[in-house]
């Protein structure tokens, strides 16, 4: 049965090929995909699709352009696509092909980092973020009910070329996956967090005329789906005040399952003692650059006092709690802002002029997607010839003068608009270069901002790189002696995606476990909530894992023992 089906699909595809080519994008068949692995990661509030593919040039000419269709059914949309040569690590350009006739897929043209000779092979790692692809089912839930999301995708990866071998891995937010399409149990495997489809051999290129098979997976999602309908971010340079001011105005919605009944404050207050996972937005954690100060948090009513701000030489964290928990379908708008010292962000260029380097997008540590982001960079009055180099594609750019009091002409302002953004792009810097020109009343030297073409300031910010300037994210807990790692996953996974759990088995490490979270914010929540939690009749002790501190205390112990020996000798005690 299994061997017949692909052939049937193949025949149908061939019959329809002629009409298909006339109506939509014609991709020259110059490649084949030797091996393809697609990973669909649904552990965030949006989909992250990663495709690792070995491509081979089957034509007799060198090739540089590779096409890739991404499925965007319904209201979903591709936020961004990045690509690199997996072995060399060199990035390659991925740009959308403006052709809407191929719905529900969208083609991307990838320019290979180097020309591929006939018969040559290269491994590409393509990652894309897709928003709006997750649907809560049931769409309406009770206040303390679990939230489930559903994802529908194609069983065979849509490709523009023949694919010899392929496999699809779906990674859910946690191990609770009540429903998934099984296709009669063949080539489908569920283990822990993942459902794997494949391997499948020799699948034809995508054709919009055939109806492809789809799979649907429904999984538990214990976090809210944070969606910022709009974000207005102002970055204001004050050379008089030696200050860089940030202000962010958010219009937030929880896109998760809607609340069925009226909100019960009593239930909320009684259950919050146990801190169950909830699909409501309770708090947001903003990891800011170190050196940030004077943070504030207000909303339409005024100052909101339920916020914490911690700033030291290593980090600055703004932890805000909205006035009420934001359930599915609820809205909340708020403003946060903070200051930084200017010399960390503004430098005098070697020639003339100045260079400004600021993060284009920051935002909360919880996974977030944005409808539209408007960043205004307000430069000092008299700054001219400003150019910028943005870390990701900008949809719209406007230049104007922004007048505040004490200005005569108004300040040079660049407004950059980006639509459909995901938080993976945050903390990338935009660089503005300014050439010199005599500034009017204010600056004696003056500014002229020049900035070249687009580039990437950093490599793709995986969570790992993100963590490099975060506090230690490892959590150490002392657990009961007979705990399986599944149980630990269940408990600790409620606070966010876990990268790794390591349990001690030796005698001196028995009853301890190291849990590594993908996100530092999740580790913090877990530490706060689970310390002292009664788990299998034992109380958990949850601590941050701090290797330096542990090493120090070991050294102390050795020193103290030495002193003890000395004292013993002095007093003649054996």
């Amino acid at each position: 049965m299994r061997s017949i089906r692909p052939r049937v699909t193949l025949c149908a595809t061939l019959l329809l090929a002629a009409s298909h080519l006339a109506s939509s994008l014609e991709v020259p068949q110059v490649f084949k995909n030797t091996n393809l692995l697609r990973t669909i990661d649904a552990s965030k509030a949006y989909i992250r699709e990663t495709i690792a593919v070995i491509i081979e040039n089957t034509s007799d000419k060198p090739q540089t352009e590779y096409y890739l269709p991404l499925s965007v059914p319904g209201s979903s949309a591709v936020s961004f696509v990045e690509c690199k040569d997996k072995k060399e690590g060199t990035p390659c350009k991925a740009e959308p092909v403006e052709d809407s006739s191929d719905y529900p897929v969208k083609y991307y043209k990838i320019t290979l980092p180097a020309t591929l000779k006939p018969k040559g092979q290269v491994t590409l790692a393509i990652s894309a973020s897709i928003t709006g692809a997750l649907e809560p089912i049931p769409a309406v839930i009770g206040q303390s009910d679990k939230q489930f999301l559903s994802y529908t995708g194609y069983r065979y990866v849509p490709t523009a070329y023949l694919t010899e071998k392929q496999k699809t891995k779906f990674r859910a937010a946690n191990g609770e996956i009540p429903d998934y399409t099984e296709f009669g149990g063949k080539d489908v495997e569920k283990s822990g967090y993942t459902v794997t489809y494949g391997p499948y051999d020799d699948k034809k290129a995508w054709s919009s005329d055939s109806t492809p098979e789809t799979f649907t997976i429904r999984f538990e999602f214990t976090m809210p789906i944070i969606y910022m309908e709009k974000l207005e971010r102002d970055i204001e340079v004050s050379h008089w005040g030696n200050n860089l001011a940030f202000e962010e105005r958010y219009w937030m919605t929880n896109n998760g399952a809607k609340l069925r009944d009226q909100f019960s404050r009593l239930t909320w207050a009684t259950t919050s003692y146990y801190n169950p996972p909830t699909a409501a937005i309770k708090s947001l954690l903003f990891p800011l650059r170190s050196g940030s100060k004077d943070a504030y948090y207000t909303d339409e009513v005024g100052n909101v006092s339920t916020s914490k701000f911690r700033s030291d030489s290593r980090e600055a964290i703004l932890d805000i709690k909205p006035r009420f928990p934001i359930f599915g379908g609820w809205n909340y708008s708020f403003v946060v802002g903070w200051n930084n010292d200017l010399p960390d962000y503004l430098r005098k260029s070697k020639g003339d002029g100045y260079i400004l380097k600021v993060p284009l997008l920051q935002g909360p540590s919880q996974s977030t997607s944005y409808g539209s982001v408007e960043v205004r960079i307000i430069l000092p009055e008299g700054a001219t010839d400003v150019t910028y180099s943005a870390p990701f594609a900008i949809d719209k750019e406007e230049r104007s003068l922004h007048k505040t009091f004490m200005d005569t002409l108004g300040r040079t302002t660049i407004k950059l608009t980006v639509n459909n953004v995901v938080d993976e792009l945050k903390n990338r810097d935009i660089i503005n270069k300014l050439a010199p020109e005599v500034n009017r009343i204010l600056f004696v030297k003056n500014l002229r901002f020049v900035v070249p073409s687009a580039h990437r300031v950093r490599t793709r910010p995986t969570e790992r790189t993100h963590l490099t300037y975060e506090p230690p994210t490892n959590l150490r807990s002392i657990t009961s002696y007979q705990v399986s790692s599944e149980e630990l996953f269940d408990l600790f996974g409620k606070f966010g995606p876990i990268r790794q759990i390591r349990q001690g088995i030796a005698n001196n490490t028995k009853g301890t476990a190291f849990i590594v979270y993908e996100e530092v914010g999740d580790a913090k929540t877990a530490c706060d909530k689970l310390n002292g939690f009664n788990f299998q009749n034992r109380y958990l002790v949850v601590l941050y894992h701090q290797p330096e501190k542990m090493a120090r205390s070991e050294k102390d112990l050795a020193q103290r023992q030495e002193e003890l020996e000395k004292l013993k000798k002095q007093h003649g005690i054996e």
Partner: protein
Amino acid sequence: MSSPTLELWNAAASSPFSPVIGKSLHATVAFILLAIGAVLTIIFSINKSLVLAPAIAFPASVAFGLGSVYALAAGGVYV
């Protein structure tokens, strides 16, 4: 992974922006400038004459102007 702008930024590492007056001095400078402004204004108001205007009134308004910029900065309004 670098680009012309990033190289430019790195090349300028030794010359960060240096303000005329740092944040810690805003309040002091504002007070001194406003005080000078006030004193000169009082002196000028006692004996108003065109001859004295460039010598007293002009410095007074400059001191007031710059003083108010630093007073705002000292208060956290970074204009």
